[in-house]
């Protein structure tokens, strides 16, 4: 069985030594800890390159090492006073975890039901005690804070969600189920069930699993492949680079000609409700005022206008496209929906060889989507959406009324 091979391979790394030597309990518990904490991957025997795969392997190991089949017999009672049987058991498990003579553990959620007469329970309790001890020892404030010891150890806080996933297992889920941020779009229906249970009942349930908390505790991986290198603070010794501070773009330099003809508007002025147009809020009206504002902005911004690539934005971008090109653009998008398995973007890039990708993106957002959105605003204002790249629309963008622009092409 693959699992058995993995287990053997794993325990070979555990330094058991001769039978006459005592097992390094602390080290063993650390190893067991790794096995249970399936995402603690920066273990010294683990190569960084395998860290994701290690997680996978260790899930398997964890299950077979700690929770084998529940039908198998539990270990015979051992005397509490003597800890030698405990060590013997640990050694035997380390040597051959799958030896049926050793017996097996029940599933983790049943652990609490078992008393400390079972040697495996004693092992888990010892591990718990040692991990608490290790944490307190590491804490630099341990000496002065008697009250801290009285407090609940953070490990023992109720696990609010049984379904809390460890971070590495999250990656495993991502690998296995192809789950990603893209797919986690508001799973509200399922969340309803989860959230409907009040915090109180969650806590009640979770008390039963207090035992299991250590073993499902999240662990951020530690090591030079995960953390940033943060030096000790010794005052301001290092000089922050004073060279790269950004290139000033605005306000404009004194030398640049600023026309004084620009009308000074108060900062933060909103859109005016009324205007002198014949048909207020018509397509022509909107286009006119947008163009008017754009002209003013261009004069005011001077060199900044081009630096910010404003000349590549706005519906005026379409003026650099021929009618045929615009038609072709729209038809490529329409004939390459996601369902076809083809990517319209690749087709666009391949067809419009004379246009850069930046130009295509700019046209897409400034003109194509913009017009589609304008169409939606008029056709169905309650159902506007410009974030789905392909929208099944009965109305073709090509059927939009052809509005004559009232101003010249060049500024």
């Amino acid at each position, binding site marked *: 069985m693959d699992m058995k091979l993995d287990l053997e391979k794993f325990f070979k790394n555990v330094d058991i030594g001769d039978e006459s030597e005592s097992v390094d309990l602390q080290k063993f518990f650390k190893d067991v800890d790794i096995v249970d904490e399936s995402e603690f991957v920066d273990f010294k025997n683990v190569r960084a390159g395998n860290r994701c795969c290690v997680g996978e392997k260790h899930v398997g190991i964890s299950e077979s090492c700690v929770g084998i089949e529940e039908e198998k017999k539990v270990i015979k009672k051992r005397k509490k006073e003597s800890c030698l049987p405990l060590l013997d058991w640990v050694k035997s498990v380390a040597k051959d975890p799958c030896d049926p003579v050793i017996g097996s553990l029940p599933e983790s959620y049943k652990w609490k039901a078992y008393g400390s007469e079972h040697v495996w329970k004693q092992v888990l309790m010892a591990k718990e005690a040692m991990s608490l001890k290790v944490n307190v020892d590491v804490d630099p404030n341990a000496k002065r804070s008697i009250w801290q010891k009285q407090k609940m150890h953070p490990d023992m806080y109720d696990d609010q969600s049984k379904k809390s996933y460890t971070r590495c297992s999250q990656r495993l889920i991502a690998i296995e189920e192809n789950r990603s941020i893209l797919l986690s779009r508001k799973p509200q229906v399922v969340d309803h069930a989860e959230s409907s249970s009040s915090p109180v009942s969650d806590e009640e349930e979770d008390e039963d699993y207090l035992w299991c908390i250590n073993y499902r505790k999240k662990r951020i991986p530690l090591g030079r492949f995960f953390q940033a290198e943060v030096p000790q603070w010794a005052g301001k010794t290092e000089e922050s680079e004073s060279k790269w501070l950004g290139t000033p773009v605005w306000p404009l330099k004194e030398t640049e000609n600023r026309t004084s003809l620009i009308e000074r508007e108060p900062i933060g002025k909103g*859109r005016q409700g009324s205007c002198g147009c014949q048909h207020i809020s018509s397509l022509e009206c*909107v286009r006119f005022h947008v163009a008017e504002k754009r002209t003013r902005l261009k004069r005011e911004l001077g060199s900044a206008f081009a630096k910010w690539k404003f000349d590549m934005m706005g519906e005026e971008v379409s003026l650099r496209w021929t009618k045929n090109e615009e038609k072709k653009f729209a038809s490529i998008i329409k004939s390459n929906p996601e369902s076809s398995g083809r990517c319209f973007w690749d087709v666009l890039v391949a067809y419009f060889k004379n246009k850069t990708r930046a130009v295509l993106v700019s046209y897409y957002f400034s003109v194509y989507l913009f017009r589609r959105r304008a169409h939606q605003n008029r056709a169905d204002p309650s159902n506007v959406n410009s974030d789905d790249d392909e929208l099944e629309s009965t109305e073709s963008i090509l059927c939009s009324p052809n509005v004559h622009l009232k101003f010249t092409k060049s500024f």
Partner: protein
Amino acid sequence: MRSKDRISYFYDGDVGNVYFGPNHPMKPHRLCMTHHLVLSYDLHKKMEIYRPHKAYPVELAQFHSADYVEFLQRINPDTQHLFPEEMAKFKLGEDCPVFDDMFEFCQIYAGGTIDAARRLNNQLCDIAINWAGGLHHAKKCEASGFCYINDLVLGILELLKYHARVLYIDIDVHHGDGVEEAFYFTDRVMTVSFHKYGNLFFPGSGDVKEIGEREGKFYAINVPLKDGIDDISFTRLFKTIISKVVETYQPGVIVLQCGADSLAGDRLGCFNLSIDGHAECVRIVKKFGLPLLVTGGGGYTKENVARCWTVETGVLLDTELPDEIPDNDYIKYFAPECSLRIPTAHIENFNSKSYLGTIKMQVLENLRCIQHAPSVQMQEVPPDFYIPDFDEDEKNPDERIDQHTRDKQIQRDDEYYEGDNDNDHNMDDV
């Protein structure tokens, strides 16, 4: 209250013209829309705008591994099929596709945050804004959640050259796992993240019990929330926690990630915040009067992203903006109302009062475990820099220690009767 804050705003004209691919929710073009809207309200007249330098690979490698940076630099959509192992190793391909000009995009948004940090360090401004930044999921050796380079970590590392302690606050709907992980074991950076948690919501981390470890124990704070949180619940919780954090931790500078996917109606989010509610958090943080680095982050309904970050630019500039959006090249995206504010949704708030109370209690309890100004003497912190937004009587540092000792006293005896406070007067030294 200090005199007018000087604001440095970073923008590069090329940042909005990259395309992640069809149907990918991350649309950098939202940055163009934001910039347009900011300008249409004439906010540029109140601040200095800079084009960031493109961060060099060696700068990116201050946090990220050299081989990861090198791979990002050389991979492109035409050659990615030749490197399946590396693509898998660095988690590129699905959420984090390889697209044209991807590396340049990373250099721009990372350069913005790094330059912002440097300007703050050199005291050339009080507040620095980089809406293109805030990509908080990226890890040291891999991409994650649409993030390739973690500009926040790079910016914080820059700030750490001049400040003993940096506070990082994250109001994106997703847990700020990349930043938390980078600084999980140090007390020089405190990370505080408010996010949706549970039900397999990405990234899956961010439980309240994640509090940091070793030297960093208690220096990570996570506020896990459920669907539908509204303005009142969120801002109240935010103010309580952040006030306590600033009081306890006394950072020299604050980094605020303003992911707009915590807004109502976001394509990937599930909260119910209005723009005013979201912006209230920015207002609360600004009020502390500390040097402040503000970045963008998530936000997948681009019109709302533009609205949100424009309003927040206004907040940082102490400028109230009228609701009617002025004419601009993107006006139709804001139609039919062309209004700056957005309505909240009629959805249920699954965050009960008791749940929020429990979370708050756990967070505040963890905060009590931190000694004031860790690893640095109290005197290091210039007191006039820090203006608390609460009880003014607490300004005297001696009194503060007194309060702390009193807390300890109560905890040690494990009693909570007010009468115990009388014991303090009999103490020889306090």
